[in-house]
């Protein structure tokens, strides 16, 4: 009897307190932010822009799930303060658990974004896979233009910018968790998706590179492609190279990672770091209207290899000689040859890196829809 009473007491307790009734805040009491924008401000440290999904469905909407958005902005000294001010004049509290992108204006990012990233990292509502985007224009313009993009679902507003990277290879999917750890880590270079607002259209155009938590440089789309190839992150891309058979035309090739991945090796040769990169890719010729024999296919492959070698060497020149950024974490690769960090530090990597020299070799295998395999 005693056991039954204690069991009933326990179950009643669980029913009321553990099921979340005690302090539950239901969905309708929140405004769900789709994206955050951070701009410079004349009067305060930053301008915070919050794009929230509006619950007022448009009457002409073709789907019951389609949503509109509203944009609120406030000049403030910190993100949390900004959210607080916006909460003050909104009827509901802002929740960041569905925030899919954080957009920084280039102007603001150049001043340093570490404080804002760390402030957001302390908010558990932010998902680790939320994307960091750096825009060449004001973040407010991006948020306004993206909501006019024609996408019905506000939750998918940023999908085309973020996911297009997988099929184009022109940028990099920068997730919040990785960016946060990179920006707080001395040996890593934080990188983010660089977006461009051009004639009211938003698109990924490259990779934003940070130095000392400040946006310094950006890699254009070809350099971004080279970065993805070197770091084994390329999923798919389309390139166009001169046709060696008919010099007046170009050949379109869909490139994918090969069976064997790109390998990078580094060693100290004559007191300087020597980087050796072996790239392996597969490609499919997509616009060849006539049959290609083995000899011509080999010729196209040779041209492709030469083209890729050229863009990768150009990429290495840009990051090593021009920017002096260890984007591929070669220091980590080299440090694996040392037993302790102390012995590696004696190398003085920061000084040594810009003297690095490199050798790139590319092996690509081409297929065509007309001639199945070489």
């Amino acid at each position, binding site marked *: 009897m005693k056991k039954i009473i204690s069991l009933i007491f326990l179950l009643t307790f669980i029913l009321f307190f553990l099921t979340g009734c*005690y302090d539950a805040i239901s969905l309708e009491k929140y405004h769900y932010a789709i994206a955050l924008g951070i701009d410079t401000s004349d009067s305060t440290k930053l301008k915070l822009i919050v794009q929230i999904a509006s619950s007022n469905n448009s009457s002409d909407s073709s789907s019951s799930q389609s949503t509109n958005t509203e944009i609120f902005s406030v000049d403030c000294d910190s993100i949390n303060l900004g959210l607080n001010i916006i909460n003050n004049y909104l009827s509901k509290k802002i929740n960041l658990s569905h925030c899919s992108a954080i957009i920084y204006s280039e102007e603001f990012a150049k001043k340093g974004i570490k404080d804002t990233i760390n402030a957001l990292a302390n908010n558990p509502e932010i998902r680790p896979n939320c994307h960091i985007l750096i825009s060449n224009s004001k973040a407010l313009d991006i948020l306004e233009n993206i909501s006019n993009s024609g996408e019905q679902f506000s939750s998918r507003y940023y999908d085309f910018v973020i996911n297009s990277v997988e099929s184009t290879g022109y940028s990099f999917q920068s997730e919040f968790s990785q960016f946060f*750890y990179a920006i707080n880590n001395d040996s890593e270079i934080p990188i983010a998706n660089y977006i461009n607002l051009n004639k009211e259209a938003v698109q990924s155009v490259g990779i934003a590179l940070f130095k000392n938590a400040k946006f310094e440089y950006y890699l254009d789309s070809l350099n971004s492609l080279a970065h993805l190839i070197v770091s084994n992150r390329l999923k798919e891309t389309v390139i166009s190279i001169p046709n060696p058979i008919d010099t007046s035309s170009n050949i379109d090739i869909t490139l994918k990672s090969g069976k064997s991945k790109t390998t990078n090796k580094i060693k100290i040769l004559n007191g300087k770091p020597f980087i050796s990169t072996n790239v392996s890719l597969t490609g499919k010729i997509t616009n060849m209207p006539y049959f290609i024999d083995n000899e011509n296919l080999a010729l196209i492959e040779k041209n492709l290899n030469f083209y890729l070698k050229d863009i990768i060497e150009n990429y290495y020149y840009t990051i090593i000689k021009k920017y002096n950024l260890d984007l591929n974490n070669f220091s980590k690769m080299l440090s694996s040859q040392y*037993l302790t960090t102390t012995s590696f530090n004696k190398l003085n990597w920061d000084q040594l890196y810009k003297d690095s020299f490199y050798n790139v070799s590319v092996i690509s295998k081409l297929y065509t829809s007309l001639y199945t395999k070489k």
Partner: protein
Amino acid sequence: MNNKISGIEAFFIMCMFSINTIILNAPKLIIENNQTGAFINSIYIGIIALIFLIIMNKLLNYFPNFDILDIANFLGGKIFKIFIGFLFILIFSIIICTFIAQFIILLKTVYFKDSPILFILMFFILCILFSNLNGFISIKNSICFYFPISIITLSFIFINNISNFTFIKVTPVFGQSFYNTFIQGFSNIFVFTNLILILFLPPFCNNSKSLKKATIFSLIFSCILLTLTIGILLSIYPFDNSISNFNPLYSLTRRIELSQFIERADALFVTIALFSCFSYIGFLAYLITQTIKKIFILENEKILIYSITPYIIGFTFLLINTNTYNKSDIYKNLFNITIYIISPLILFISALKKKLM
């Protein structure tokens, strides 16, 4: 009532100790101390702990079915037994309260933002009360029930993150320096909290041989689990700087995406971790009551739990309010001195005394 446990149950109980230590901050503490050397350090401290364990097991052979309090009584009489008893009560209290405090902070940060700490704490306290009032059998059974579930959960986390493991990320293998990894890093041996159980489990175990086997296997298991966790954490998060106060295993679960439908597997992890934590703290509280019972030679220890719980509440609040629940230094030294110096000394001198008698 039969309070005896089999070898496999002893293995489950000891492994549950290490799982809970790993679920909370043990891997992060080692990584913060040794950076990339943490991987080798975890293997190194595992080997040292194993050597200690074998020595302790040999010494315990002289005292079958004796726990450390009985041995202290044999060596130095009642006063010495009380002293050692209080030392272990202090260690158990620190483990239990630090653990509860860390878990409460995690829950409060992530899920119960608006709830008062006392409200969250009451679940832990009620669990300690109910499990101890139901007795040793229910505590043991709950551990045996939740151990496989915890293992499945951890394996699930590892499998989902194992693709990120790259050996290059755990290099230079010896970390900052050999001194940092092997001399300073020696103090990390405190993460094997389950070693404390070899001093208390003998009276509960039917077969001392199977208990010894269980202790050795559980230590090997803990070492593998710790090394694996550290390897994966090092591969994913660069720990050059101590930056995040977030629970690293929890952060790992937030990276898991099971299709578009289950994007937040972290809730599942917290639920399972909570249940394994409940069974763990229940057992720790039971050890405190057993120690008090032995010190003061009491007949019924169950009633003691009513006086222990307010003490746990107070101590946990103290740790949270003074923000000391994350500072492992004092606890680390106390644990290491007690387990790796005082206890073997007591065992060694008692064995000598017994031989000479």
